[in-house]
């Protein structure tokens, strides 16, 4: 069996606790939909959160709090609108299906990118990245943390291979040049913080034209 690349325990805990930034949480949700063992673990951690909430000593509310709450539910329009329409990519895991998607953009040979209209957090946002078989991204470093989850295909960095469902936390200091090693294109969902810094003279030359 191929080794699995999983999120760190810290990041799983942060997701369960709701303290990941929204774009990071989107990539994590995609990963969990594809990796049931981690999903079960996160559910257990959420039960831990439920336990902690249950045993929290209550903080007294203001006198009119209940009346206000009852008034709010009386005037409430009713149930929340649960389902935004599905987007046009049925191959995406369920948690990504209800986000609107931007158009595909060419960002380099064999490399296309599409915005996922999930909530941003400052410079951090979610994109889909599709790279053809055998292609590699330009060498780059990141402005901040980059989280990646492989939806289809596979890529390899200098040291590791990432298959379907795998999760990568890229170190912002490491020069990164993933290469697609599957026969089919590799589709990933990525939470990207800051602009990618391209390396080398070609990279510097095309940097102004490549905005991911």
């Amino acid at each position: 069996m191929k080794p699995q690349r999983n999120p760190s325990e810290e990041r799983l805990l942060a997701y369960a606790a709701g303290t990941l930034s929204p774009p990071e949480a989107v990539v994590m949700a995609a990963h969990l939909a594809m990796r049931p063992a981690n999903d079960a673990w996160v559910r257990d951690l959420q039960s831990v959160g439920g336990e902690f909430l249950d045993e929290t000593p209550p903080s007294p509310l203001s006198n009119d709090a209940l009346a206000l709450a009852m008034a709010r539910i009386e005037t409430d329009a009713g149930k929340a609108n649960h389902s935004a329409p599905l987007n046009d990519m049925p191959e995406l895991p369920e948690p990504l299906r209800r986000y609107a998607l931007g158009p595909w953009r060419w960002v380099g040979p064999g490399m296309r990118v599409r915005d996922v209209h999930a909530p941003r957090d400052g410079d951090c946002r979610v994109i889909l990245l599709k790279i053809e078989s055998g292609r590699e991204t330009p060498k780059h470093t990141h402005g901040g943390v980059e989280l990646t989850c492989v939806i289809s295909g596979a890529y390899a960095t200098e040291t590791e291979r990432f298959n379907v469902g795998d999760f990568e936390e890229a170190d912002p200091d490491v020069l990164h040049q993933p290469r697609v090693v599957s026969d089919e294109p590799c589709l990933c969902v990525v939470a990207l913080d800051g602009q990618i810094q391209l390396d080398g003279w070609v990279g510097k030359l095309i940097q102004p034209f490549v905005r991911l």
Partner: protein
Amino acid sequence: MTGLRVAVMFGSRLIQTFPLSVLVFMHAEPLSFASTPYRSNRVKALDSLPDPLLHDRLIEQIALRRDREAFAALFAYFAPRLKAWLIKSGATPGAAEDFAQDAMLTVWRKADLFDSSKARAATWIFTIARNRRLDMLRRDARPLPTPEIELAGDDVRRPDELLSMSQDADRVRDALARLSADHVEVLRLAFFMDNSHSEIAKHLGLPLGTVKSRIRNAMTKLRLILAPSEDAAR
């Protein structure tokens, strides 16, 4: 009949014993809730029972009938706890109360998504509140869903799995009871203090490295207690 207890076995291991009356309640009650009109003394009667499923029932009543008294009972229990949570994570009392109001309104709206076989009430409300918090933290809010527990899977569970799901709360509670006080404390802070490890370190007066390794150790322990076989696979 009150003294009669029923043992729930998993293989040769005793998971939990219930008074027979609780098991009867668990199986019989959802049907009668659905078919009989709501009686206001029911909530009060339930309230005096040490019923671990009381809050689950209240949410189901809201889902079934938009039951306002059930909501009031749920609000009385959870809103002060949600407020306390937010105060611990650094919010002002006023903002914390607004948050509690907001989260409970979401509970009202989403009650029909509650599935007591997947999560018990406290976990579900915790998850709703955590998502509301994500909504508040995001800088350009859009009317789109953050990933939520109910989106993760609409799979139909088998009856034998239902039994194990209903044991989850007890499983997790028992596991927490077996962790050291230090480990429980550091996990609680990780849940309630926006997870900034340096903030936790400051709060405990410990070096950052100590806090990080303590959190990691606590999670390793928890994993071992909850799923000894799964852990070997990682």
